[in-house]
């Protein structure tokens, strides 16, 4: 009895035994398998290294070139961009575009998701709507942008931007144009988050509401929407991140003027009809491939953009964690 016990297990600490067993197993593996294992570890660690390098490098450049002065002064048109002006207008432009895009996208996406889950009849139409949103998610943003250009250059859309004097055609580039086209970019993530949340609300919750004599619409407003609000917030934050990061639509549809320039004399609306720039287009135009060629400014703007994107992602994670905590009492 005692000899067998002495040889197996109990004298060894369990952790070390596991590691030795693993090493022993690895010794029996074929070389090709070991190579695959090594490659998987290498790729996993490489991704971490790339991300760390990217964040550290952007952070380093950001700290190097960013100053409070740069953040609060307006860009100035000058031959040498690296010497003059700040990035206040691109920051405002980004916030304005995010606001316009979100304000348009949220009601449409939530409405479409509610209709699909709660009504969804006729069936074929529901299926068409679902694949339409899949199509938007898969369409290249440059194609969406150029569609927006064709749309907003039509004569009856002149109110959205401004028309040249003497029948030169509609300019078609403005905050209204870029913002409303951006709403298409944000739509799929808001829709997907809302739909999944609605589908995961148990049927008896709705039935309980109907049993109290509430109509469908009252159920949606009083029961379903409050329940799925965190998911709508998650989807919206993701959509905002996509809007903030998209460059193609801005390059084509915002006119790429450094400062916010009003399209008309009406206060407020004039800015919306006017042109401007966002952080993304500012980075693009000030990189060596653009006209500005002021890498210092581009790095500073890219750093601000990166902070914005990372902040939105942290927000998503934070909402997710809060939800996970309050998951049970549904």
């Amino acid at each position, binding site marked *: 009895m005692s000899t067998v016990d002495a040889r197996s297990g109990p004298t060894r600490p369990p952790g070390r035994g596991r590691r030795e067993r693993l090493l022993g197993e690895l010794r029996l593996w074929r070389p090709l398998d070991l190579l695959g294992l090594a490659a998987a570890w290498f790729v996993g660690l490489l991704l971490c290294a790339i991300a760390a390098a990217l964040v550290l490098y952007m952070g380093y450049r950001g700290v190097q070139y960013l100053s409070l002065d740069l953040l609060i002064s307006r860009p100035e048109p000058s031959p040498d961009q690296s010497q003059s002006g700040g990035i206040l207008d691109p920051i405002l432009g980004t916030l304005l575009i995010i606001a316009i895009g979100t304000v348009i996208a949220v009601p449409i996406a939530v409405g479409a998701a509610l209709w699909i889950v709660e009504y969804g009849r006729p069936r074929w139409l529901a299926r068409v709507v679902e694949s339409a949103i899949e199509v938007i998610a*898969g369409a290249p943003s440059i194609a969406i942008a150029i569609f927006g250009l064709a749309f907003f250059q039509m004569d009856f859309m002149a109110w959205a931007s401004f028309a040249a004097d003497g029948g030169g055609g509609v300019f078609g580039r403005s905050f209204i144009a870029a913002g409303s086209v951006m709403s298409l970019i944000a739509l799929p993530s808001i829709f997907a988050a809302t739909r999944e949340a609605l589908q995961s609300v148990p049927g008896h919750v709705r039935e309980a509401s109907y049993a109290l004599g509430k109509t469908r619409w009252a159920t949606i407003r009083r029961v379903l929407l409050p329940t799925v609000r965190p998911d709508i917030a998650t989807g919206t934050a993701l959509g905002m991140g996509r809007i903030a990061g998209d460059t193609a639509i801005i390059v084509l549809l915002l006119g790429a003027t450094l400062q916010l320039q009003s399209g008309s004399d009406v206060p407020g609306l004039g800015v919306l009809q006017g042109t401007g720039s966002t952080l993304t287009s500012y980075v693009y135009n000030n990189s060596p491939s653009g006209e500005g060629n002021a890498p210092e400014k581009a790095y500073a703007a890219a750093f601000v953009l990166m902070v914005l994107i990372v902040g939105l992602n942290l927000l998503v994670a934070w909402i997710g964690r809060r939800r996970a905590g309050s998951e049970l009492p549904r």
Partner: protein
Amino acid sequence: MSDHRAERLLGAAAVAVVLTIVAMVAFIAIEAWPSFQHNGLAWFGSGGDVDEQLGDMVNAGADPSPAAYHLRAWPLIYATVLTTGLAVLIGVVVAVLAAIFVVELAPPALRAVVVPVVRLLAAVPSVIYGLVGILVLVPFVNDHVIEESQRQSVAYVVPLTGPGLLVSVVILTLMITPIMIALIADALTAVPRGWREGALALGVTRWRAVMSVSVRAIRPAIVAAAVLASARALGEAIMLSMVSGSKGFSPQPWDGIIFLFEPLRPLAATIAEQAEGIQAPALRSSVYAMALLLLLSALALSVGGSIIRRSMRLGAAR
């Protein structure tokens, strides 16, 4: 609000989305028509210098003759296919390995790092990738990778200055890999535990069990991930316009290693760069024709990808 009106209102939001898509395809197709009409199928062919042809369109002015529509877009199409294809090929291998690492190999502490890292890489805007590419990778390639003799050997055809196929593919791979990792890791997690344990019980090593059971079971998911990622890569305009060298040139594979350094310009980047001169009717139509080609191929790819994914979900349920 009455129930009936609520249904109408919500339905209207849903239908508006559909109408937008229909309008999108219709608008682009109408604008693109003259270009296809004047060139026929030769539009897709090669011949002449694309950049010169596009330049002539701007010079043709507001009332172009039919000859001004002349366009042979092959170098741009070839550049799109080349960058997308190479990036997806490399990306699939990387993504499968990374997904195995995340799901099967990484200790929990490391997994808690890798998952946010993948999410971060997916969220970084393309213009930042482009900026790092043109300010860090391109000078590096120009100074340390391209040799002077290689520069001399093709100097009479095309200047090698750093931006080109190599940098484009590297950054494009980095951009599309996170999406693929997410899809493949999801599928790997969904493989029933018992399947792998069955293989392990038969005495197979852990790596073999993963490769022969899990990875084999999720092959459709891998295909779907590759297809969806290539739809994303096709449409990448800004980053590629920054680091591709922006030249309507077809890199020649038989140039050997120089092939990797030759500049090119895919369709999407061309659209982004030519959008300035879009008031010239001939150029406008050509740019919309490129957009139509991109849009339709991206749609075909993403619809194909989701069909594969859906059929896989049914298969897994059985």
